């Protein structure tokens, strides 16, 4: 066990290096970063307060029915799902793609030691999320219920243990995937497809859990409800059946229930490590290999490739290839941008397929279309459409780390940017343009499809679609330049694992806050304008404002970048 601990400590030091840790230089950009970090904290406060109130309010609401534990269970369930969904790409990158694997395999270590150490590293990272998601809710509940010492003790234990089972699911999925397809040469492709598949499963679980809990049987549920004493515990948990012990342990401050919760976790972990011992190494060996065809290119192939291209185009192409061929970059910087509609579709499809009975009482398709057409003729509804498009675009852009890690991704090889005879401004723009292209592909395409369907099927005013497209396009540009600004101010270049460049890079969070802040201001301005101007005028003003912001950023960010890159000496 001591070797597992030693291994864990080493992996912690290598894998969870702080963004601020190594650089002792006190620079102005670091001061800016500290201010931004504080800003992130401040921005989180309303959210934390909201969760606190949800815990306290939920208790007040459900206590009279004898089911206050449902609040805790819902919190635990949502936290577990978030852990599962974020955990899948993280487990794949830490277990299978990190650079330390090639150093660890030749050592006389057992597979389960390595997996155990890596699991603890991922777990520690997940705690940040669990504490923010679950902590305030449990605290709110505890304060409202006047929880005793045992409640608080169990809360700490619960938060520590909660991410374990979802992470075990993510790890088992990753290990099986890599074991089954171990002969596949193109591991990069496998990782990307596997992660996408895993995410779809993760989201499907969120939709299916309700049915597993037996919520469809209303008479049985009524009977449970009448029993009181948190008899509904376990109804939501579905794929996390041991949460019922945690809920009862917390709500009733029961040592027995808590012990059962811990025992189930211990059993799951033991089974997981046993499986790891059996299959981990057979999946991880050869991960460093990439698809390679030692084949002489034909003259035609060479002729096609060996053509002069403009510097801008060639640089963008290089950025694009590196992004889409590096699984960790693709998963963190581009994937969500492309597949977000799937995650909206899954609950919808599951909801429709789960809806019992026939179409009795439901309006017919024609009636539905007519009703929607009437709704869409209302200026207020059209305004909501534009706000939704703006909101989704902002969300998609803030989720993407393409621009906020654009320089960081160069790592120690950043120096090529300094010795090639290409102006820094051109290089900065090429890097931002990658984020913009990804952003446009992930938003404009969907807006266009939805817009055309709206026009054809529901008679939506084409002007709304045009405004939606323009607003979305300009927002993507603004967001990417803002995110680039953050990364230029202090890129994270010291890393030996691609994951650190994107997953453990504060610039991603700071870029997100900056984009959300700027868009919040613009959104508020639009809201105020709507009180005095008609909808299309407001939309027009918004387009002008966004275009002006884009023009300014297009000029200023590369200028700032040129200064920072010239100063850059690692």
């Amino acid at each position: 066990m001591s070797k597992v601990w030693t291994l864990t400590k080493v992996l912690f030091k290598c894998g969870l290096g702080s963004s601020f840790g190594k650089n002792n230089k006190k620079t102005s950009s670091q001061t800016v970063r500290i201010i931004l970090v504080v800003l992130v904290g401040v921005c989180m406060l309303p959210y934390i307060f909201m969760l606190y109130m949800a815990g306290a309010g939920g208790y007040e609401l459900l206590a009279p029915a004898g089911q206050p534990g449902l609040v805790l269970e819902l919190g635990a369930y949502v936290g577990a799902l978030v852990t599962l969904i974020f955990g899948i790409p993280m487990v794949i990158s830490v277990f299978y793609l990190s650079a330390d694997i090639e150093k660890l395999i030749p050592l006389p270590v057992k597979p389960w030691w390595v997996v155990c150490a890596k699991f603890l590293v991922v777990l520690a990272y997940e705690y940040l999320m669990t504490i923010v998601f679950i902590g305030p809710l449990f605290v709110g509940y505890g304060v409202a219920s006047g929880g005793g010492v045992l409640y608080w003790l169990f809360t700490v234990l619960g938060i520590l243990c909660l991410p374990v089972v979802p992470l075990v699911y993510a790890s088992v999925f990753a290990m099986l995937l890599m074991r089954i397809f171990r002969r596949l040469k193109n591991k990069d492709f496998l990782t990307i497809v596997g992660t996408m598949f895993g995410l779809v499963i993760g989201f499907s679980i969120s939709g299916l859990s309700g049915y597993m809990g037996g919520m469809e049987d209303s008479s049985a549920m009524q009977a449970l409800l009448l029993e009181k004493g948190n008899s509904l515990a376990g109804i939501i948990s579905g794929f996390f059946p041991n949460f019922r012990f945690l809920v009862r342990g917390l709500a009733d401050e029961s040592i027995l229930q808590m012990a059962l919760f811990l025992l189930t976790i211990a059993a799951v972990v033991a089974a997981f490590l046993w499986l790891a011992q059996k299959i981990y190494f057979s999946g991880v060996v050869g991960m460093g290999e990439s698809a390679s065809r030692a084949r002489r290119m034909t003259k035609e192939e060479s002729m096609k490739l060996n053509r002069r291209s403009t510097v801008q185009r060639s640089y963008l192409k290089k950025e694009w290839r590196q992004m889409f061929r590096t699984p960790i970059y693709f998963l963190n910087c581009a994937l969500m941008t492309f597949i977000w509609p799937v995650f909206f579709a899954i609950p919808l499809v599951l909801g429709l397929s789960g809806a019992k009975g026939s179409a009795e009482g439901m309006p017919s398709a024609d009636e539905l279309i007519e009703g929607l057409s009437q709704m869409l003729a209302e200026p207020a509804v059209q305004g909501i459409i534009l706000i939704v498009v703006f909101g989704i675009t902002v969300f998609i852009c803030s989720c993407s780390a393409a621009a906020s890690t654009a320089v960081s991704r160069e790592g120690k090889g950043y120096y090529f940017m300094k010795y090639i005879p290409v102006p820094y401004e051109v290089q900065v723009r090429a890097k931002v343009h990658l984020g913009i292209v990804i952003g446009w592909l992930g938003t404009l395409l969907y807006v266009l499809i939805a817009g055309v369907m709206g026009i054809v099927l529901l008679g939506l005013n084409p002007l709304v679609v045009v405004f939606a497209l323009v607003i979305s396009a300009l927002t993507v540009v603004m967001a990417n330049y803002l995110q680039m600004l953050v990364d230029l101010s202090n890129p994270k270049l010291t890393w030996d694992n691609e994951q650190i460049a994107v997953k453990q890079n504060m610039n991603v969070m700071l870029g997100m806050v900056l984009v959300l802040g700027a868009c919040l201001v613009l959104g508020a301005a639009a809201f105020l304008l709507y009180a005095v101007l008609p909808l299309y005028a407001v939309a027009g003003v918004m387009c002008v404002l966004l275009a002006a912001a884009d023009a300014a950023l297009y000029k200023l960010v590369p200028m700032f970048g040129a200064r920072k890159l010239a100063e850059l000496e690692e």
Partner: protein
Amino acid sequence: MICLEQVSKTYGKSGKKAVDSMTWNVEDGKITGFIGPNGAGKTTTLKMITGIIRPDEGRITVNGHDIQKEGLEAKRQIGFVSDSPDSFLRLKGIEYLNFMADMYDVPTQGRQERINEYARKFEMEDALGSRIQSYSHGMRQKIMVMGALMHQPPVWILDEPLTGLDPKSAFALKEMMKEHAAQGKSVLFSTHVLEVAEKLCDYVAIVQRGRIVFLGTLEELRAKFPGEESLENMFLELTKDE
């Protein structure tokens, strides 16, 4: 020609100079070896010449272009091979070469022939269609050398270029350096391997603690140590701690 005039560089706040008032010229048509123990300031000097880092004092010109004031023009003169070939790993060899060619405005005409010629010399014909990630260390080194030569630079700077190369590739590289110099272009490379310097260099610059302690031909070096045959002993004598 590369000219360094009173160039100094200090890292951090310690005040210790990594490069200290360095003044020397790298002549055209010659191969200059840059030799020194670890941490002597070789890489720092090469990085300053290529524009990667800025000198605190002094001036560097490449074929008459000041690297600070006319950075782009000076950089166009240089083909640089760094000591770490682990870059651009997700690109295919051929994609990397074309990327570098585009960065240096190499026209389409002649590109194919140049790539074919370098690939043949380094026996890389079958590897160009594969990703650099799948290359061995030596192959990565070779593709970096090929990339640096795509624009046929008048000045060629290589940081530890022979590390990891198999004997045949090392021989090919040395021949290319000789050909390059024979065309009247300048070649500057750093190395730890004294035998290579002895056989290849027209000039050697020996650096110790950021200062040039010897600059001249090997004959001049031998004249400085009469009776001493071993270059290694001469080097050790020049770089011994005072």
